[in-house]
């Protein structure tokens, strides 16, 4: 391929400058226009958006707006130009996708995602292109000035599944996480393929058909690898940069969020400048840096980054869809060719289905959990095309592609078809299929319980047998990451607070504290906090102080993919169980027909395989299953402590002191009075037994606790106290 990088950089940067100058006014007008219609979107009724996805509604608004503008100006002044789209609107959306990507899920399904992204996209491109060419030869399209290469080019740009459209539609349709990550991951990664194919065929068209020989084709294949891996590498380098930066910004925390966005955008531009895949670059930048920057940055910076990212992404997405609508109202662009358009629609639909089913059939031979039929249907049906295709087609050179307008029209129709029709019918289709499958098998209670037991059993056995092979690599990567990367990229204080068990322990403590205060406020007075538990209050403060240097950043939730400040989690999650229990009792007494099935459905703990990571454009939620994990952990520790006590101390398990939520009566012992005495005489107060306690409970001594035991001897008794208070 004949790029001269230097010239390209120069031309691109000069283009950017002129672009900036002349388009500043244009962009600001555009943004103000769109900001007028955003409130209308916001006010849209939720029942409406659950039937018609937001993206479809936005396109309709775009049509209306386009009609108004066209009526006013007699020509379309606003269109979605490729430059605006690719440089101003797309990066935020992709950065948001990368930053909030559930990494574990993504990388564990990476093989399947790559298969779909690379092979699937190539298949789509080839079949659509060749199919259309065949039909053209057969005369179905009439007389158009087009050739095989142009068909292949068109196939390659229309084949790519679009991430923006996918998120927009899947937001309403709740599918299981594996399925979601497959489609979503595919839509992000297929950019590598699309860019290469597009450029390759573009170059081929310029060369003309005669010049193509094996050398050119081999060059094309090599360029795929260069573009894809190069783009990812650029992204990873920028991720490293960002992580290092956040490591050093302890004293200038206020500008940390700015860095993330600037460097993220820079990774996009750098990759674009080097003619590599820009989308892959920014995706990997987001994916690789999330963990480190969330650990390094101050809690408020993390919150800022999250919210600003969502704002930008939402804004961009809105603008993109509205513009897709507006661009349609432009008679200059429209060329109608029934054969071409209808055949394109047919081919992308049919070949998508065939491709997905074929690839899944091959993949299922290697997968532990096969993809079911309904998943495959949703995956094929969810292959939506969107603005990226439109952006690419608008970039075509009119002189080389005589039928550019036809292609543009077709692309627009394809986009509308997939986003609107498939978007609207996706949910009913899924419901219908699920209903159909559910009706066939009606499980008994025993089967339901047993199924869940099996899930938990399998997860436990997998943990015990330490699944490797595929996880061997993961273990190795983990070790490497723990030793080298975390040392290099994370602040020392952030590193210390990484112990998982300790985090859970700390969160349970915080939850207790919050529920305690809430209970106090519910009872109506600060007096509750002040007199009855004076000792406790002091205790808590002291406890916090002795831990403060060890866990300054524990407030940033390191546990899951969604990093939300704890205070906001705790506000929502602490249940006032008392009231709930009464309500439930009432309904139970009222209705004889007690639905055990429904209860099981609601309240059985989900096995690890079924945990749901919701990626959502508009909601910042925590993984609600962390609650489950904490409950289970608490119970297990409780029962282990009881058996430990009865085994070692020969005493019956102690009377229940005030437990987490369930007891509202006064504790039977004064929390601090008796127990602290107990701690002095009891072996629990002893350093050695305390560590023994931990070892038996947790199987190992969490490293942080070792530090605690060594350096804060007074705190030892307090730890044991907390453990007792918590776990009894």
């Amino acid at each position: 391929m004949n790029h001269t990088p230097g010239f390209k950089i120069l031309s691109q940067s000069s283009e950017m400058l002129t672009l900036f100058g002349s388009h500043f006014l244009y962009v600001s007008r555009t943004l103000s226009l769109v900001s007028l219609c955003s409130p209308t979107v916001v006010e849209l009724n939720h029942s409406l958006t659950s039937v018609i996805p937001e993206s479809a509604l936005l396109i309709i608004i775009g049509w209306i707006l386009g009609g108004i503008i066209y009526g006013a100006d007699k020509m379309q002044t606003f269109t979605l130009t490729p430059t605006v789209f690719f440089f101003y609107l797309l990066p935020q959306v992709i950065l948001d996708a990368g930053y909030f990507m559930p990494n574990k899920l993504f990388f564990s399904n990476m093989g399947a995602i790559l298969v779909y992204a690379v092979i699937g996209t190539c298949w789509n491109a080839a079949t659509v292109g060749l199919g259309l060419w065949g039909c053209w030869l057969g005369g179905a399209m009439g007389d158009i000035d087009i050739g095989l290469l142009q068909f292949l080019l068109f196939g390659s740009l229309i084949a790519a599944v679009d991430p923006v459209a996918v998120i927009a539609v899947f937001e309403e349709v709740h599918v299981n996480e594996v399925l979601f990550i497959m489609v979503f991951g595919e839509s992000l990664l297929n950019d590598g393929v699309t860019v290469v194919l597009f450029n390759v065929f573009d170059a081929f068209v310029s060369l003309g058909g005669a010049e193509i020989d094996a050398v050119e084709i081999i060059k094309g294949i090599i360029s795929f690898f260069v573009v894809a891996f190069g783009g990812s590498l650029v992204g990873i380098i920028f991720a490293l940069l960002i992580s290092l930066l956040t490591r050093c910004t302890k004293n200038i925390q206020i500008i940390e969020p700015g860095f993330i966005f600037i460097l993220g955008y820079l990774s996009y531009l750098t990759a674009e400048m080097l003619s590599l895949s820009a989308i892959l670059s920014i995706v990997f930048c987001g994916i690789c840096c999330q963990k480190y920057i969330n650990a390094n940055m101050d809690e408020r910076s993390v919150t800022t980054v999250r919210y600003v990212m969502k704002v930008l992404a939402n804004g961009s997405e809105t603008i993109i869809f509205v513009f897709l609508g507006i661009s349609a109202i432009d008679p200059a662009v429209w060329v109608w060719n029934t054969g071409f358009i209808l055949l394109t629609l047919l081919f992308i639909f049919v070949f998508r289905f065939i491709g997905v089913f074929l690839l899944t059939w091959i993949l299922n031979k290697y997968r532990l959990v096969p993809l079911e039929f309904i998943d495959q249907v949703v995956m094929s049906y969810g292959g939506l095309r969107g603005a990226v295709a439109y952006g690419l087609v608008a970039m075509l050179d009119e002189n080389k592609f005589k039928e550019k307008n036809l292609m543009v029209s077709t692309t627009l129709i394809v986009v509308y078809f997939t986003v609107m029709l498939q978007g609207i019918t996706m949910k009913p289709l899924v419901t219908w299929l699920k209903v159909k499958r559910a009706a066939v098998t009606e499980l008994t209670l025993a089967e339901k319980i047993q199924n869940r037991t099996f899930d938990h059993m399998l997860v436990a056995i997998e943990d015990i047998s330490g699944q490797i092979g595929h996880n061997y690599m993961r273990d190795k990567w983990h070790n490497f990451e723990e030793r080298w990367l975390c040392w290099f990229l994370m602040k020392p204080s952030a590193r210390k607070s990484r112990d998982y068990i300790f985090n859970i322990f700390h969160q349970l403590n915080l939850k207790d504290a919050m529920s305690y205060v809430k209970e106090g406020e519910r009872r109506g007075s600060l007096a509750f906090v002040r007199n009855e538990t004076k000792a406790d209050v002091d205790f808590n403060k002291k406890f916090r102080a002795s831990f403060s240097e060890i866990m300054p950043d524990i407030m940033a939730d390191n546990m899951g993919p969604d990093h939300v400040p704890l205070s906001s989690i705790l506000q929502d999650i602490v249940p006032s169980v008392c009231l709930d229990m009464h309500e439930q009792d009432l309904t139970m007494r009222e209705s004889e027909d007690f639905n055990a099935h429904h209860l099981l459905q609601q309240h059985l703990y989900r096995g690890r395989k079924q945990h749901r990571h919701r990626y959502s454009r508009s909601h910042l939620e925590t993984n609600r299953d962390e609650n489950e994990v904490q409950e289970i952990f608490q119970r297990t520790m409780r029962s282990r402590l009881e058996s430990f006590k009865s085994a070692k101390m020969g005493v019956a398990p102690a009377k229940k002191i005030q437990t987490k939520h369930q007891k509202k009566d006064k504790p039977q012992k004064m929390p601090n009075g008796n127990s602290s005495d107990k701690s002095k005489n009891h072996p629990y107060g002893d350093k050695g037994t305390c560590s023994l306690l931990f070892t038996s409970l947790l199987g190992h001594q969490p490293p942080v606790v070792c530090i605690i035991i060594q350096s804060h001897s007074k705190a030892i008794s307090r730890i044991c106290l907390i453990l007792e208070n918590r776990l009894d």
Partner: protein
Amino acid sequence: MIWCAAVLPNTNTNSMNRWFSCFLFNIVTPAHIVRLYDRFEALDKEKTGHLRPQDFGAINRLAMNPIGDRIIGAFFSPGQETVDFHSFVRILAHFRPADKKRPKDPSMPEPVNSRTSKLKFAFQLYDQDKDGKISRAELLQVLRSMLEMQVTEEQLESIADRTIQEADLDKDDAISFEEFRKSLEKVNIDHKMSIRFLR
């Protein structure tokens, strides 16, 4: 077998015979054994050649599993405090996919990964006192551990009652192994209780 003796220390004729029973039905291959031995060694931090409950407790993720402790208990035969490698493999061998092509020979002992053996393993998770029946109390215990904390006692008991009602055929208010097996006859046990040891 000789290979086995070379790789695993402490292999004498007694244990070789025990390995033979596993190999006979081709349940675990030598590659599996090596893999599992690595894992055994990784868990056995003090290199005693046996595993104690604490070693299992070191697996953090098991603490997040509602029936994690029960599974750990299943590895230990009643009265035994430790698990040696053979028992370790034997329990894990329950989770190998069953060999559908094996001829049903009543004179041979049931292989560890057959449907019946798997169901027996699952049954024993419920039946902690090993009386051959899942009593109401035992079922309640399991249910309690698998349901969220906000479910009340009354609701739990109701579910337990209905479950026993569905499965109990001889009306003795407990679920025997036969009733257990019958209630799960439509479930694909093999699919639900198999994992791969190698990838």
